[in-house]
């Protein structure tokens, strides 16, 4: 049995996927979800073989939802109109269905998916592209236990490298996200966040004082080490 999940905030949009899937007797729809939170839970619970995912959804969008999964499933995206997403899909030869789509077009996407079952890797590669293409990251979505937290980017005090993870420090403590420092350095506004050290990216507005050429003091009292290049970058941003 092949398990499929449909995630879309519009009931009728879900129903048309379900209807088209009726001709695939080997596929069972294990759950339909109306938003990313529900979708994430369902994916964790059912470990589906295929997910139909809308990009624009309440609370967290399709990409943000996938980012939170340790192992993203194979996905066929459905979207009405999103030039940005379409560019990302095309860059990774990932199939996407533009609403409204015909049964023929749907069948083609299914055929493609069945031929190359390796799509989870493609999904991961896609997410990296999406992140890199985003003009400016506005928020970070993290998972804490079973709940999801959306952190507006200005509430992040600093980022700290932590093995395969990045610790995202806020005034309410820190959150872990499986990303690289490089990823954050590339996606954040370089005027607001500066990588001052191999292991630290700080928010410029949080700086109280720069003690010496090798240490910076934050408002929270935290002392962050400065590397030689980090000190240079900080000087440029602050205009000193």
């Amino acid at each position, binding site marked *: 049995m092949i398990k499929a999940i449909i995630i879309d*905030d*519009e*009931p*009728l*949009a879900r*129903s*048309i996927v379900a*209807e088209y899937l009726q001709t695939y007797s080997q596929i069972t729809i294990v759950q339909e979800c*109306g*938003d990313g*939170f*529900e979708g994430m839970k369902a994916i964790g619970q059912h470990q589906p073989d295929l997910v139909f995912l809308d990009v*624009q*959804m*309440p*609370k967290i969008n399709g990409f943000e939802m996938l980012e939170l999964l340790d192992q993203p499933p194979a996905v066929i995206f459905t979207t*009405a*109109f999103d030039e940005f997403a379409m560019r990302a899909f095309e860059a990774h030869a990932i199939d996407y269905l*533009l*609403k*409204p*789509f015909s049964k023929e077009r749907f069948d083609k996407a299914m055929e493609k998916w069945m031929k190359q079952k390796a799509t989870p890797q493609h999904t991961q590669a896609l997410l990296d592209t999406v992140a890199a293409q985003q003009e400016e990251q*506005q*928020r970070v979505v993290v998972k804490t236990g079973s709940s999801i*937290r*959306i952190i*507006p*980017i*200005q509430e992040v005090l600093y980022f700290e490298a932590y093995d395969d993870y990045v610790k995202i420090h806020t005034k309410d403590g820190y959150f872990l996200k499986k990303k690289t420092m490089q990823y954050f350095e590339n996606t954040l506004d370089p005027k607001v966040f500066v990588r001052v050290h191999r292991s630290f990216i700080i928010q410029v507005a949080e700086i109280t004082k720069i003690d010496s050429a090798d240490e910076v003091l934050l408002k929270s009292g935290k002392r962050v080490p400065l590397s030689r290049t980090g000190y240079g970058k900080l000087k440029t941003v602050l205009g000193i």
Partner: protein
Amino acid sequence: MFKEFSTRYVAFAFGTWWVLWTAVVWYIITFYGVSWQQALVDASINMALLALTSIAVLNTIKFYRPTRGNLLYLRLWSLLHALFISAVHGWLIAEIYSYQIEVVRFVELSSPIRYVFNLVMIGISTTAIVIYHYVKDEREHELRKDAAEQLAKETELIKLRQQLQPHFLFNSLNSISALAGSKPEQARKMIQQLSDFLRGTLRKEEQQLTTLRDELHHLQLYLDIEKVRFGHRLETAIQCGAELEALELPPLILQPIVENAIKFGLYDTTDAVLIELTAQLAQKELIVQVKNPFDAVTAAPRKGTGFGLNAVSRRLYLLYGRTDLLKTHTEGNLFITTIHIPQP
């Protein structure tokens, strides 16, 4: 400044100017013991020559504007012409009076004065012509600029009105596609609603203002479609007193505000959402408020007021020249958008 600037007016002024001067010159010449007939012929010939020169200058400057650098040429040109006119004038008078000795003597004796007079007249008329063209150019430039600005403003207004979100259209078509399989009757109804809505959008482009009644009717078409898309998650409440329905506002101004509220509301929470719209009249302004719930804790940080609202704000500015007609604020978990429409 130049209220009446038509060619006719200019021609009249031009003619009057030369006739007056002819009379003056005639009058002066009679003082020198010349018969009035001869003085008239003398003055007429001189002034006619001057007038012809001015017409030549007028036509030349139509196509060629002297710049600061070649004003010198213009002066030189004036000097030569004054000389030329004096010569032609002397010759003509002599011809007409068959070289009578006293006539020729008179012309010869008075020639230095004539020359200076002609030079001054050419100077005055050339200067006047240059100024006339300069002012005319400026005015035409102003008019062109005004026309271009007006056109740009109209184009922008049309564009701002037409900003139909492609998301809305494609998602609606997708809903219709879904209904076509299972509930063809409802699909047909939704096609009808979408058509009515789109038609309303097109028709209203021509008008400047519409009544609140029409605007709310159009909004209802939009909401009906959105309700099919989002099902039970979307609820709306519209409060508008019957006495307000005749008030006027720019067409298609409410729909983008409500669209923004729906997006903001629905995409920020996973529960059912109530969008409220209230209209009231205060201090000669129609005030429409749209409220949508949002989650203050997890709401995505937003930059400014969002694209949809920016377009509304820009439209109101272009129509009323005021930037304070659209405002947003929050009250607890409600996001409130308020627009003020000045009433005549």
